[in-house]
């Protein structure tokens, strides 16, 4: 693995940790939340490198974050939201929205629309992957209760 990738993952981890402190998470949970950010961003970058498919990478990144959070939520017996919220922050299309605005202000309307559409698609993709995981987690729990 090249150092660029590793340093990016490290930055994502520390950035997520800062966000987690802002959301009042503490103790061991803080560490694991930050790792969630690393997992999301790391898998996103790896998949993006291999396939060059933006939405697929976002999907897999968010999927792994929510899966990781479901598992941790069961272990720590805390709401899953604690981990998901901070873990997906690096994937949220804040940068795309900013670039769209900046293009629009410079008069490049078509570019701005393309970026806005992209931001919307990314947000939708993140939503779908969280929805998929939480749905399957519910089904899984139902099955476990019945058995």
């Amino acid at each position, binding site marked *: 693995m090249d150092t660029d990738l590793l340093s990016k993952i490290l930055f994502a981890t520390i950035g997520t940790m800062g966000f987690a402190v802002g959301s009042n998470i503490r103790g061991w949970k803080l560490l694991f939340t930050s790792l969630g950010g690393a997992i999301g961003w790391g898998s996103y970058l790896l998949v993006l490198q291999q396939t060059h498919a933006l939405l697929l990478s976002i999907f897999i990144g968010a999927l792994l974050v929510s899966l990781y959070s479901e598992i941790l939520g069961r272990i720590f017996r805390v709401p899953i939201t604690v981990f998901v919220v901070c873990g997906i922050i690096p994937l*949220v299309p804040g940068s795309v929205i900013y670039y769209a605005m900046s293009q629009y202000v410079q008069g490049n309307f078509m570019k701005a629309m393309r970026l806005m559409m992209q931001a919307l698609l990314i947000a939708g993709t993140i939503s779908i992957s969280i929805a998929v995981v939480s749905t399957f987690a519910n089904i899984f729990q139902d099955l476990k209760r019945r058995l």
Partner: protein
Amino acid sequence: MAELATETAQIVLQSGGETHRVENIIHKVCKQFGYDNVESYVTPTGIFLSVWDDQDHVATSIKRINSRSTDLNKIASISKLCDDIKSRNLSPDQYSQEMHVLALKTVYPLPVQVLFGGISASFYALLFGGSWHDFGIAFFIGILIVLFNRLLYKAHFNIFLINALCGGLAVFIARFAGTYINGLQTDKIVIGTIMLLVPGLAIVNAIRDTMAGDLVSGTARLVEAFFIAIAIAAGTGSMLKLWYLFY
């Protein structure tokens, strides 16, 4: 009893809990204290709750929720407390006492939160391709943004205005620094700092509420997330435009 459940629900909802979690907690609290017949309806802005006792007397309680913030630790600790009522054999008074202690507990003092806001912003700036110079400026702006955010929140500005002003401030300082320091990538700095404003909690709650079948809350949260995003875009966009007009 209804009051106790409503208070618990209020704390969880104001800390950023999903509505179906809040409803679950209400039912849990009432059941643990022996009231099996409970109906609750929770939206992001209000709690409605009726409790029946053995003689079919109804107690109803309605609570309007105005302010909401993010305190995920509070949600976790209150959920745990509700789970433990039976096993620790708490009386309603004891429970109420413990709940109030938890409700007042803040995890990090303001300076720590502000500092970590700066750290978060600066590392996100690096993450999106900034240099170490950008890192320093983003750290500074991140601190300012968190402080400014708290200040506006205390002054009861609405959520749209808060995010728009914070976004505008971030662009302004970044551009301002860019005119004095050569080679700054102002876009990376701004992106790093607006990651602090991004509505992560609203997005996640919107999806989880919708998936749990709570369509009203899901839609409400989605609109909240959408409006925050629009506010950030509007704030940064108008500040950029002003900047281009004057320079």
